[in-house]
């Protein structure tokens, strides 16, 4: 443990780099979760309620994205989008891949939650004369969201973890910053451990917060 003071000083030297990397990681994750959830809500709605043509197309989209590793999605969107004339920075291309990935997970999750609701709910709502938007907003969505929350929290932690993949295409997030620090001082154990610990704390916090919300909104038994 004679290396500890040296580690402390190296950590102090690189504190701003780490903070900046952490900021980028949080920004990527939050954007991916928010945009992915918005897109995923549409995906879920189409999968449950639309006509068969659009449902079929969206089903292909979901199966294709879910069958491909996120890492391949990130690399493909980084190399591919610029090739077909869409000029994006590495940040935007990586974010695009994460949003796509997130949307399929949220969509499947929402589909499962909507389909698990008893048919009687829809029938009762129609019987008292609600239109479809009213039926969805007041009857189905509140119940489906409660069902979908645990899996959604899981997806959120998954997105934080997936943001590390952007280090490979050169986005300066926490892991790439860590790699750069290590290439300067060769303290791989200490700094990989630090990075792992930071990711752990973020994901653990999300998980804990999710559990707390779950308890809050659980149906009284």
């Amino acid at each position, binding site marked *: 443990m004679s290396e500890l003071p040296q580690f402390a000083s190296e950590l102090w030297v690189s504190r701003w780099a780490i903070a900046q990397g952490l900021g980028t990681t949080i920004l990527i994750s939050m954007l991916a979760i928010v945009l992915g959830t918005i897109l995923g809500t549409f995906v879920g709605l189409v999968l449950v309620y639309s006509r068969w043509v659009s449902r079929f197309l969206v089903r292909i989209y979901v*199966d*294709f994205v879910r*069958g*491909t*590793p*996120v*890492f*391949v*999605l990130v*690399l*493909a969107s980084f*190399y*591919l989008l610029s*090739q*077909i*004339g869409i000029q994006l920075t590495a940040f935007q291309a990586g974010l695009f891949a994460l949003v796509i990935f997130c949307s399929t997970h949220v969509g499947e999750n929402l589909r499962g939650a909507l389909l698990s609701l008893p048919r009687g709910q829809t029938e009762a709502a129609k019987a008292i004369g609600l239109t479809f938007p009213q039926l969805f907003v007041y009857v189905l969505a509140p119940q489906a969201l409660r069902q979908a929350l645990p899996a959604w929290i899981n997806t959120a*932690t998954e997105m*934080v*973890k*997936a*943001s*590390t*993949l952007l*280090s*490979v295409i050169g986005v300066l997030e926490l*892991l790439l910053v860590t*790699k750069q620090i*290590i290439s300067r001082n060769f303290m*791989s*154990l200490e700094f*990989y*451990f630090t*990075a*792992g610990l930071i*990711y*752990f704390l973020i*994901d*653990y916090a999300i*998980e804990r917060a999710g559990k707390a919300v779950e308890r809050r909104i659980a149906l009284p038994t």
Partner: protein
Amino acid sequence: MGYHLNFGAVWRDFDLLLSGLGLGLALAIVSIFAGCWIGLVAAFAMNAKRPASRRVAGCYVTAIRNTPLLVLILFSYFVLPRFGFRIGKVESFILTLSIYAGAYLTEVFRGALLALPRGLREAGLAIGLTEWQTKVWIIIPIMLRNAFPALGNNFISLFKDTSLAAAIAVPELTFYARQINVNTFRVIETWSVASLMYVAACYVIAAGLRFMERRLAIPR
């Protein structure tokens, strides 16, 4: 745009891509097999009476599940050699993926163990089996059959996770795809073929797992 599709470059190296796919599958199979053993031990530890073993297993599962796999891979690849473990990149990747799989399988097995009726263990003890024999011959076989669907899902996601091995230059599908991409600049062709290969492999695995699921299901 001026981009003309030309799959020639990709077909020329298609055998490389196929060998990469095979290596990915092999990595996933070895890792899930090793992960099953870790998961079994940790799942029994989590359901054990002693709080110490429960806490150790719980820490392992929480720590691994909340850390990005890429960080774990880089950690074991770059840090283990510093302690004198001279292992290659494939071995280090298998080690990491097994430990990673073990954490997820612990949760699967723990749930499956809790779902078993208590009478099974009591019946085993009643016919004179020891605690160990009951576990090995009664509890684990039935638990594995119940856990099989979840085990299959984990296998598919592990197979997709093998793409991360490209980050430490293990020559699997993603690694070769990147190589072909960089060498030939056939960007669209390379990535569409590579992702289609992953999708197709996942479909085939899923179909195979469903078939085995039907065969293994406990008849009612």
